[in-house]
């Protein structure tokens, strides 16, 4: 029987609680009166109105209001949204944290006062996972240009030694760290949870730090690391330790603070340089809050998201983000993404990827993942407005300023998996402070980053329903009208003739057997299940969108992968369940009535059954939202055999763009790093590295010379090839 979601108002009245401000030590804490802490929430599935509109009119817009707890350090809570009436505390708050009730509002957040901090740093900067806090992955350096990039050569390479192919005692490694350049040093985190400081010009070790962290894949199918973060005091005191700090997270939820000059732990940070983030893992603590993504550093705030174990449990730790003081590790605020009333019977909706920051606006933008379990939502039929969203949060207080939900009642694991790229764009002659959120779905959502409102209309459109026990489907989903989707999710992919021929028709038979009514076809139990296109690995992955602010061109790599999802009742699942890999195989969703499987549509030779291309590099003119060019990227590779580059490759990782008109990117299966023309998309240069380079490259200048650095670590989603190589390129120096 088709069921519809509770109307927004009922759900909200039931307590859509999203914001928890956790108190600092009592000596500093100061409770304030109830103030509205508003937020605009994305379209409510219950709304069901297929209208066009922004954050304000695309469905239920909820604010949060109520008792908040804050500190002297944090500015007094302000009505950041909409002037809505505060609902007051719900009475459930028994300690330092309080839960806000929600209300509806139809107004934009109050304009924020912009501080005079440019969105794009004036100087060349690459001191974070995405280069800069705006996540543009843009370098103003122009020594290397489209004309001379063909001449660049390897300057040095470094092998960390921290690699495992899984054949021994250690789990396989998945290494996606972007090197960061700061303090005249290149800092690298490793999947064995070490930090290595290198001389940027020569690759010589300056120091190393070993966290001695457990090398068990506690929450992941592999040992993972996406690098380190860097903080520097505003006025560093000469000779004083820890004026510059490198932060490293570990699989077992510890955050290390290390002196960037010496590699020694910072004694004043938490417990002698180690913060146990798992101390805040208090609900459904089935596994530790793995810190695989480096935290986001803005001002003196270290903002921490975490990763967990997908697909294993119905009930899991509910999504949270923590802000701690950069010097002391003291907790400043916590943001919860799941309403308190249902927090115990679901989980995740966490931030496991990078964030972006507009320091001028004082906002951090959080890409929030889907709730658990990922492929069945019968335990979470209430609204979870912040799940699978982009949520803008006040850096100082943790208050939600606006939020846009990109998938309602997500049952496809369409986590928002990359930091939104902040960009100022000129549309119809007006400059708009925008952000672009790339998604696993292959949609690029563009909204005003001050208000969350649409830049180009984002429509709520009806989507298919289903009939799985206990499930309550969202009747509509948001569809952007511009830019066009990165792949066609409306039609089921066709069988690729060559793979079909090689499999004696098995590919076409498989694809024909899969249910598909467009991307939002819900998982089913019957037959071979439902086609997932794009699948949970995207679309776009954590590399996100690069942006050249001078030409207002966005660049993004995408994958076109066909998987199929099937649900099994518990009895059947227990009978047939086999193993699982990285985003493929059998997963129990323990506690839910259904286990599930997720498989890539390959033939017996391992050839993809669906039509190419399998991955593309796409450039978008942000003045119009139109595609400028798109080309297949890389080459798919199996057993060493390369498929023609015209077919492209699935990609993980992302691009960097430079003022020299060059795009640098690894990301492809074939373990090559490449340079493309920003103007035309033409491939200009490539080199073979040790394994697929599945992070963003770093572009930096050291002693007057421009360098491009890649880490080649591999990812088993692409193929079983791992590496530990850091490789740095530059133009030859004149003798």
């Amino acid at each position: 029987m088709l069921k519809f979601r509770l109307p927004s108002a009922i759900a909200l009245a039931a307590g859509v609680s999203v914001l928890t401000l956790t108190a600092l030590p009592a000596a500093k804490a100061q409770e304030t009166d109830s103030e509205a802490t508003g937020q605009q929430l994305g379209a409510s599935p219950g709304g069901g109105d297929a209208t066009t509109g922004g954050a304000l009119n695309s469905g239920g817009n909820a604010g949060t209001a109520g008792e908040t707890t804050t500190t002297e350090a944090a500015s007094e809570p302000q009505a950041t949204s909409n002037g809505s009436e505060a609902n007051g505390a719900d009475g459930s708050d028994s300690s330092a944290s309080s839960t806000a009730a929600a209300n509806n509002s139809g107004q934009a957040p109050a304009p924020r006062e912009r501080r005079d901090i440019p969105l794009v740093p004036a100087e060349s900067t690459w001191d974070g996972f995405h280069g800069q806090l705006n996540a543009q992955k843009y370098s103003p350096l122009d020594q290397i240009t489209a004309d001379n990039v063909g001449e660049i050569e390897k300057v040095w390479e470094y092998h960390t030694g921290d690699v495992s192919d899984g054949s021994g005692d250690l789990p396989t490694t998945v290494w996606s760290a972007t090197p960061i350049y700061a303090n005249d040093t290149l800092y690298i985190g490793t999947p064995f949870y070490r930090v290595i400081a290198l001389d940027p010009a020569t690759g010589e070790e300056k120091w190393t730090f070993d966290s001695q962290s457990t090398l068990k894949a506690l929450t992941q199918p592999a040992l993972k690391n996406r690098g380190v973060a860097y903080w520097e005091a505003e006025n560093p005191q000469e000779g004083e330790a820890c004026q510059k700090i490198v932060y490293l997270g570990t699989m077992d939820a510890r955050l290390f603070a290390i002196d960037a000059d010496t590699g020694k732990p910072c004694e004043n940070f938490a417990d002698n340089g180690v913060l146990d983030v798992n101390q805040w893992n208090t609900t459904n603590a089935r596994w530790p809050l793995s810190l695989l993504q480096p935290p986001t550093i803005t001002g003196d705030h270290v903002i921490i998201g975490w990763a967990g174990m997908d697909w294993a449990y119905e009930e899991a730790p509910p999504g949270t983000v923590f802000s701690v003081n950069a010097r002391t590790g003291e907790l400043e605020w916590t943001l919860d993404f799941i309403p308190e009333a249902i927090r115990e019977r679901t989980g995740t909706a966490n931030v496991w990827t990078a964030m972006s920051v507009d320091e001028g606006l004082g906002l951090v933008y959080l890409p929030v993942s889907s709730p658990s379990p990922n492929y069945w939502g019968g335990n979470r039929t209430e609204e979870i407005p912040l799940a699978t969203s982009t949520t803008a949060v006040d850096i100082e207080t943790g208050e939600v300023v606006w939020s846009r939900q990109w998938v309602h009642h997500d049952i496809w694991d369409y986590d928002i998996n990359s930091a939104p790229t902040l960009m100022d764009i000129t549309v119809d002659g007006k400059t708009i402070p925008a952000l672009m959120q790339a998604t696993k779905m292959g949609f690029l959502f563009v909204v005003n980053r001050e208000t969350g409102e649409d830049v180009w209309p984002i429509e709520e459109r009806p989507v298919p329903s289903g009939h799985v026990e206990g499930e309550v489907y969202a009747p509509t989903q948001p569809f952007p009208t511009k830019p066009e989707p990165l792949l066609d999710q409306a039609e089921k992919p066709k069988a690729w003739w060559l793979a079909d021929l090689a499999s004696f028709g098995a590919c076409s038979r498989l694809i024909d057997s899969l249910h598909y009514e467009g991307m939002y076809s819900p998982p089913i139990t019957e037959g071979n299940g439902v086609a997932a296109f794009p699948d949970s690995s995207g679309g776009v992955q954590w590399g996100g969108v690069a942006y050249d602010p001078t030409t207002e061109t966005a660049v993004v790599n995408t994958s076109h992968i066909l998987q199929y999802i099937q649900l099994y009742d518990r009895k059947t699942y227990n009978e047939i369940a086999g193993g699982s890999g990285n985003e493929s195989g059998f997963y129990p969703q323990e506690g839910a009535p259904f286990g599930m499987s997720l498989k890539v549509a390959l033939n017996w030779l391992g050839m993809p059954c669906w039509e190419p291309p399998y991955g593309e590099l796409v450039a978008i003119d942000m003045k119009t939202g139109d595609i400028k060019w798109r080309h297949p990227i890389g080459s798919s590779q199996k057993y060493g055999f390369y498929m023609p580059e015209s077919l492209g490759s699935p990609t993980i990782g992302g691009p960097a763009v430079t003022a020299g008109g060059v795009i640098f990117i690894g990301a492809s299966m074939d373990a090559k790093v490449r340079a493309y023309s920003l103007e035309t998309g033409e491939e200009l240069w490539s080199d073979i590295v040790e394994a697929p380079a599945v992070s963003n490259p770093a572009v930096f200048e050291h002693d007057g010379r421009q360098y491009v650095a890649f880490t080649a670590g591999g990812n088993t989603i692409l193929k079983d090839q791992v590496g530990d190589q850091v490789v740095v390129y530059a133009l030859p120096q004149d003798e």
Partner: protein
Amino acid sequence: MSRHASSGTTEGALVVIFGAIIGLIIAAYLYITPLTGITGSFGAILVIVSSALLILDGVMLLGAVTPGSRGVWLTLGFLGALGTLAAAWFLHAFFLMAAMVVVLVGLVMALARPPYATAAASR
């Protein structure tokens, strides 16, 4: 009447062996050396094995004295060389492709000459 391989067959077989040895060395290099793109891959093992088999094929061709055996070794040689050539193309092993072209030239040389010379005919 004794038979022995014609000089054309002998030369052709020697070229096959030479090309296949070069192919084997290249394939082994590609398998062992870091950053060739196919280091340690199954595909590289495959062309190592096929190159070794082509060496064996050349040796057998050298000793083939009957039209039947010569035909078998030529056929297997062509299949092996063309297969390795195709594999090398998909492996982006372009020097290996060149080695396989040499093997193919050797096979064509062996094919183009009379199947065998008889002692009588040579008198």
